[in-house]
């Protein structure tokens, strides 16, 4: 009988981890639908960028209030996870505070967890106020209606509840240690330091020991089950950034933001067109056909690179990109955040198709990213100013998706806005976007 809690714990832990692993596997599969992109270069630079931007949160603190609160929650999350390790060991082996053997350092650890837990709880409440009371603009834009809004609040509620459970558990535990309850009392006296929950412990005075044990156990169980639930909630929420921010920053673009990728397939064709010796009817060399992309640019998720797809999962919908976007600021439909959200939504839809039938192809459902998720009006409103890319704290590049989709519109559908077609015709014929004669290019020199 005495092993039943341990067995239940093992089952819960196993189920939580297996389910999480299944979802990670699906996410990997979906990301790998994307086109190849080589980001295996400059490992040192990538590592240092990851340490600085993801671990060091260097871009978060450009907004001092949100940045500071976020650093608190981030540090709290990372540090308190050390405690989760102890909870798992206690759960599996039926021990009580197994790490307490390390002595006074244990008190310091538990004490700092408690202080962090309180700070996290306060930060989470402030985050909630920013979203729901102050209604900061980037949190209430159109793409944030419905699920994205609720999702953000659910995450805050879960985090707050976890912190309250953690502190309640500690408070009850402290009380039980003080009264010398069996299974809680240690020979060395009270183990751990409880700078916050020492104020909770007095509430249990006068309660029957058995009741306090029930409270302690309930808080302990709900806390660890809550963590397992949260781990599995990640995949269904915008909160994957707590894991994916690191790879996303690592694999992010290191080139100047102004540099847009040159399409190699186009280079080959243009070289052939410009080469007077080229034989247009020559047989393609063996293997060449495979290198030619089926289409130029992107109309659906599989036309994007794996990095762009990874980024769609990484995006936590903070909206810093959209807040900086000149098109969005002036009331246009474009929102770089929505570009990322739409990409993920479509990718998930394709993923659902694959879950049901592993031979599913994105074109099978008659839908695509273009038009069904992202409209042409959004794509054409972009000024390519890179403000969104600069603003993203985790290295996401929404602009690259916009550009890939514009390439599809222009090169596959010839569907540029008509004024742009005019400018492009001018470039082709006169070497300038305006209808001036190239022979007059030096006219200014004579006007002086």
């Amino acid at each position, binding site marked *: 009988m005495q092993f039943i809690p341990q067995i239940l714990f093992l089952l819960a832990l196993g189920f939580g981890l297996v389910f999480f692993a299944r979802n990670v596997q699906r996410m990997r599969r979906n990301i790998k639908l994307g086109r190849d992109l080589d980001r295996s270069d400059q490992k040192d630079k990538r590592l240092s960028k990851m340490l600085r931007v993801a671990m060091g949160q260097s871009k978060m603190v450009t907004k001092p209030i949100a940045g500071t609160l976020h650093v608190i929650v981030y540090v709290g999350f990372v540090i308190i996870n050390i405690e989760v390790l102890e909870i798992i060991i206690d759960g599996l082996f039926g021990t009580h505070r197994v790490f307490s053997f390390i002595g006074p350092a244990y008190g310091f650890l538990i004490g700092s967890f408690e202080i962090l837990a309180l700070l996290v709880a306060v930060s989470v409440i402030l985050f909630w106020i920013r979203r729901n009371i102050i209604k900061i603009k980037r949190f209430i834009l159109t793409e944030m209606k419905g699920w994205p809004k609720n999702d953000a609040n659910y995450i805050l509620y879960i985090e707050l509840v976890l912190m309250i459970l953690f502190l309640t558990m500690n408070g009850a535990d402290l009380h039980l240690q003080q009264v010398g309850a069996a299974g809680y009392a240690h020979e060395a006296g009270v183990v751990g330091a409880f700078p916050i929950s020492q104020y909770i412990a007095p509430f249990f005075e006068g309660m029957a020991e058995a009741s306090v044990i029930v409270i302690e156990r309930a808080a302990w169980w709900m806390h660890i089950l809550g963590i397992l639930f949260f781990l599995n909630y990640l995949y269904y929420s915008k909160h994957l950034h707590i894991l994916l921010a690191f790879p996303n920053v690592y694999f992010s673009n290191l080139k*100047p*933001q*102004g*540099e*847009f990728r*040159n*399409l190699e397939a186009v*280079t080959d*064709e*243009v070289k052939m*067109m*410009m080469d007077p010796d080229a034989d247009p009817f020559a047989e393609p060399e063996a293997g060449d056909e495979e290198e030619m992309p089926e289409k*130029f640019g992107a109309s659906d998720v599989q036309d994007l690179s794996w990095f762009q797809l990874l980024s769609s999962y990484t995006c936590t919908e903070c909206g810093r990109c959209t807040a*900086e976007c*000149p*098109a969005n*600021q*002036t*009331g*246009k*439909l*474009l929102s770089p955040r929505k570009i990322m959200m739409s990409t993920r939504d479509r990718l998930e839809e394709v993923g659902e198709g694959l879950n049901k039938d592993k031979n599913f192809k994105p074109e099978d459902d008659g839908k695509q990213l273009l038009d069904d998720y992202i409209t042409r*009006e959004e794509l*054409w*409103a972009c*000024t*390519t*100013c*890179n*403000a969104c*890319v*600069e*603003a993203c704290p985790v290295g996401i590049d929404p602009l690259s998706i916009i*550009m890939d989709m*514009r*390439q599809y519109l*222009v090169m596959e559908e010839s569907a*540029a*806005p008509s*004024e*742009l077609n*005019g*400018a*492009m015709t001018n*470039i082709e014929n006169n*070497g*300038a*976007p*305006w209808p*001036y004669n*190239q*022979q*007059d*290019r*030096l*006219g*200014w*020199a004579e*006007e*002086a």
Partner: protein
Amino acid sequence: MSEELKVPTMAQYMAEGKQPEVLFWVGCAGSFDDRAKKITKAFVKILNKIGVDFAVLGTEESCTGDPAKRAGNEFLFQMQAMTNIEVLNSYEVKKIVTACPHCFNTIKNEYPSLGGEYKIVHHTQFLKGLMDEGRLKIEGGKFKGKRITYHDPCYLGRGNGEYEAPRELLKKLDVELVEMKSCKQKGLCCGAGGAQMFKDAEKGDKEVNVHRTEEAIETKPDAIAAGCPFCNTMMTDGVKTKEKENDIEVLDVVEMIANAEDL
């Protein structure tokens, strides 16, 4: 002002068997747009005055392909790029200066993988270099003590990380440099980039250039300094929309230097 500009072409240099110190890439706006031509001329006046040995491509220059690329027309971009690279390589060009951040960005970042590797600088970087070498002396002149706000062109600033060269030139003019609420890394676009210059804006509640001009006006400037012919056009239009054209000038950094020198 009546002095004639000396604008030699690469073809002339070639005929004499010489290489200039630097090629001045004028760009389409600088060649054809009436407002931007003034920037081109101001730059050439300075180059003439301090005796920089430069040349232009003249009729052999063609659009870098930037607007085509950013509109999504990679074919047209690469056709333009390769044609230009052929011309530049035939003249064995090594160093380029341009007054257009779009040309600058495209040649600097997107030409190398197509076979065009040059050392290219923006004209503010070039002038800053001349200043550091002591070849260019900048003094306050008519802008001394004037409130100036500098608008960062996206493709010079965020695109390529150059925020300081234009500001250092302005500081040398003894102006009172005031920053807009979004500047440098967070600088707000003028609305022209990404080929927007050549099309109508999508439906919205405001034009981007008006929005940016409002930010500039908030700093109560005597003039708005720019470093891009397209930004210049957008900000000039914005100032007109706000009916401030009599109070606020929109000038390229190089025009301010030329004006200060009374060139």
